């Protein structure tokens, strides 16, 4: 029921270059472009704007296959996974996909030789960082796992390491935060956006009993969450394990109404909400 709304809203944000603005009137950004394409690929397969956006992302790809936040920030490579998801399995971008896939398979977050006493998670597991040379965290690892799986790399050892890291960072009472589960003996608290994306990455690789508490956590907070990033990630996370809520349309409408308070949502938020609005399972 929201398809035409999202196609229209996302479409308005494309510039002639094929890039997409974070909010209307601003310059284009890589992550906004990638998320908008990802949503349009599902909302309207074959969309011309999405094709223009894919070409734009191609022009932003670095020599080593990464797609960084801006061309002059080669170390901020977390958008590579998003670009790869935007190119998806499109044969016209095979070259770009191969290079980006190779980059992700070869890059990894920093690991430590020795386990610090105050940290509970396994610091020797390599996932993916936000920024090259730093530690691995839940969201960039989940995004890399999702992107690589979409390229048919689900059995690759790096993907298996990523899944192991995500499972290792799961909080004792279920759910995930940005990626620290216990510090100085205190269990930390979960966050819906991290939990949702972690569950999406784990889809098909873990049995439900391993993540039961995490699903319970998302189900318990779902009624009280109304903001686009958290709400869409909750819906996508639950849907990944066949627990899609029954009133998604109503909740998405309530969420869209929040724009009366906060103004137009950022493109990345609209795109994730669009993906949540579709039953992709």
């Amino acid at each position, binding site marked *: 029921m929201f398809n035409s709304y999202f196609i229209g809203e996302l479409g308005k944000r494309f510039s002639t270059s094929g890039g997409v603005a*974070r909010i209307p009137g*601003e*310059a284009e950004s890589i*992550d906004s472009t990638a998320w908008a394409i990802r949503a349009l690929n599902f909302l309207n397969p074959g969309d011309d704007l999405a094709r223009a956006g894919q070409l734009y992302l191609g022009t932003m790809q670095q020599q080593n296959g990464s797609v960084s*936040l801006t061309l002059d*920030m080669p170390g*901020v490579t*977390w958008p590579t996974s998003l670009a790869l998801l935007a190119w998806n399995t499109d044969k016209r971008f095979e070259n770009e996909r191969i290079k980006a896939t190779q980059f992700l398979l070869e890059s990894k977050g920093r690991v430590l030789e020795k386990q610090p006493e*105050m940290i509970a998670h396994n610091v020797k597991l390599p996932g993916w*960082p*936000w*920024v090259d*040379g*730093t*530690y691995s*965290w839940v*969201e*960039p690892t989940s995004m890399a796992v999702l992107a690589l799986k979409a390229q048919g790399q689900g059995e690759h050892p790096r993907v298996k390491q990523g899944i192991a890291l995500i499972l290792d960072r799961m909080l004792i009472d279920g759910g995930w*935060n*940005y*990626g*620290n589960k216990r*510090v*100085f*003996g*205190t269990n*930390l*608290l979960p*966050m*819906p*956006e*991290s939990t949702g994306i972690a569950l999406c990455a784990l889809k098909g690789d873990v049995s439900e009993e391993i993540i039961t508490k995490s699903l319970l956590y998302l189900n318990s907070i779902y009624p009280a*969450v*109304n*903001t*686009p*990033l*958290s709400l869409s990630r909750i819906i996508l996370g639950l849907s990944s394990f066949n627990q899609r809520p029954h009133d998604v349309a109503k909740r998405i409408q309530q969420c869209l109404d*929040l724009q009366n*308070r*906060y103004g137009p949502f*950022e493109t*990345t*938020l609209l795109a994730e909400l669009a993906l949540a609005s579709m039953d992709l399972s």
Partner: protein
Amino acid sequence: MKRYSMTNGKKSFNFTRRQWIGMLLAGSITGIAFNSLLRWGRVFLEKEQAVFSTSTADYSKDILGPILNGFKELNITRKEIKGKKVLLKPNMVEPHEAHSHINTHPLVIRAAIEAFLTLGAGEVVVAEGSGHRRDSLYCQEKTGLGEILQEDSIPFVDLNTTRFIQCKNRGNRSSLGDLFLPSSIINADFIVSMAKMKTHHWAGVTLSMKNMFGVMPGSVYGWPKNSLHNAGIVESILDINATVCPHFSIIDGIVGMEGDGPIMGTPVNSGVLVMGRNPAAVDATGARIMGIDPVRIKYLKKASGWLGSIKNKNIEQRGELLTSLKRPYKLIQGIPAHQNIKS
């Protein structure tokens, strides 16, 4: 007798063991003297700064009045603020139900908005780049800040995702190199760090200077802002403050956090607001109120004589007596950053 040689270019010098030891000793003494001189030099270089502290029992009481009193005491005038673009940077690291003491209270933010508008500010914006949360709208919804900003027609800027600009690092203490700062920070005329009074398990305390971590965009530095930790927490605090140079600080210590801060600690009803123009002096005062010796907080010690004043004798305390406001915060001995910092 064994001879020790030292080569200086083509010349070679020979010394006896006694001469050699004597030279080493003299060198060490000179080194110690130089370090002492540097240390004392820093204290000497500290300018006198004024800080205003006042009791405010709880959030239901008048907060605007104490802030306006602080402005008066610290000579923040209408002439200085009129027409300016004021940016308030609260601490909204992550909101959780029943953990309201994690974040700067929205009623303190509202009072600051009203105070700056009273002085004729041309525009007031609230801006934050949460360190742990990607969902800034969730932070606004859960803390109640969103409702307040809507009622007061005040814009919110998500510093994590907004446009940023490469800036020269004016501190150069960390390995960060140039800093990428949001354009809204660069374009603001008057930046106010609105911190929460909390202990911190990596930095000892988190007050107005550590609060400035939140101006660094997550899109560049990640969530948590791990690149800043990698580059040295203390050094990053110094670099950000040296580069951004916030004009004013307000610490919300009405309900603070003790124990395992900045997230998992317990609330403390310390009933205090601390404010001033110099962030180091404000933080040193905040630390004293928490029963913590600011000289033992690494970032404050390093800021002393450079970014501000932390010595008691160099801070002119205005408002209420610190002895009447002091409420020692519980520390955790198992946390290295909490060890030996009590005053």
